[in-house]
């Protein structure tokens, strides 16, 4: 379950410099991903700026604690994905404390051990790799899987792609099955996927 080095658009070496606590690395991380983090929380918090700032600070503090305790391992996931995974945990934690209904069952929330965020990040990168793997999904399967995951209805998808709804359903089923097999080949069995997916809404 090691992270590949050829993923696009990632500041070279930042993950390693963060893990090594190199001077200036955390400031660079903050400058690069601070606006994204704020935007991520802003979308979820409905424009409550005080809450957004609080969640952003909690996320950076949690990331820094993990890095300081050597719990972040750059060979497992890029620092950006790790920050994203931590942010999701912080958000779900906030939702649970605020009593906001989420898709997460009560008994398995974001309060797991900090290394869960790293495992969640690793799972996301594994899935990204599977989606990109040449020959795994054909174009139609990939488009159907991503559109369905984004909430587009089968009917809308069928109209857009000029395919029968039954064909859309079959493509989706095939794509999901291939992705599950691909994840399994990377060491993510069904039970682990189920557990780690609870970190995400």
């Amino acid at each position, binding site marked *: 379950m090691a992270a590949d080095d050829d993923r696009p658009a990632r500041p070279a070496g930042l993950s390693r410099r963060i893990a090594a606590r190199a001077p200036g690395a955390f400031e660079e991380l903050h400058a690069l991903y601070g606006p994204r983090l704020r*935007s*991520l929380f802003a979308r979820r918090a409905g424009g409550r*700026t005080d809450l*957004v700032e609080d969640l952003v600070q909690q996320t950076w503090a949690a990331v820094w604690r993990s890095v300081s305790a050597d719990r972040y391992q750059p060979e497992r996931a*890029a620092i*950006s994905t790790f920050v994203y995974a931590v942010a999701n945990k912080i958000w779900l934690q906030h939702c649970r404390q605020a009593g906001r209904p989420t898709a997460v069952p009560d008994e398995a929330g974001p309060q797991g051990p900090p290394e869960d965020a790293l495992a969640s990040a690793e799972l*996301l990168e594994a899935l990204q790799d599977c*989606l990109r793997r040449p020959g795994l999904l054909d174009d139609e399967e990939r488009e159907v899987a*991503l559109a369905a995951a984004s909430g587009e209805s089968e009917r809308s998808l069928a109209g857009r792609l000029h395919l029968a709804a039954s064909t859309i359903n079959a493509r989706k089923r095939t794509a999901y099955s291939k992705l599950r097999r691909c994840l399994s080949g990377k060491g993510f069995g069904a039970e682990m996927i189920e557990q780690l997916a609870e970190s995400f809404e």
Partner: protein
Amino acid sequence: MPDPVLERLLRAAVEAEAFARPIRRLRLASWWLLATSGAAALLALVFMNPRSVTRYRTIPAKAISIEHVSSPVSQAGQRIDVLQPCLDTAAAALVLLRVWDRDCSCLQWQVHEFEDGSTITEMARGEAVQIPVDVSHAPPIEQSVLLAVARRASDLPSTVDAREDLLACLNGVCPPSLPDEASCGNPDVLPCLGEGITLVQRPFVAD
């Protein structure tokens, strides 16, 4: 067979990849026009085929111009300036305004509503659209209009929920501010919009 767990992970994987992309800032020669060519690099496209990339191609920022026409104060003490976006290609447009709000004495975001109540308009090539802005009570400070354009109206936030989400996001990244606070440019707000959208900012001063 539905697989909600995998669907949740797919959504997160796409969002995480978009999150991982550093924000790129572009500068154009003109001092008043800051433009970037959209969120085309957003992640879903990475996973799509070249045919899809063509379909989602963004409109180049240089195809968009926005004029600011000052108006005299009327006898009733009202002053309505006009902003005139014009495209050299047909496209759908959404107009975002960061303008003076008398109630809070601050700059606030607004989504412009056209006369028919819609917030998205189909613009023909070479046709200017009139955006009246009431600047009667605005001090001589920099306000701005952001024009979000896409080849397809469906790429722009059209539902009430989508517009509310957009305003919430805009207020998150660029909160209501006083005139002497830092300005907010389109690189800041670009993450609030989806892929396939080009955003052009035009500051103006009602002086």
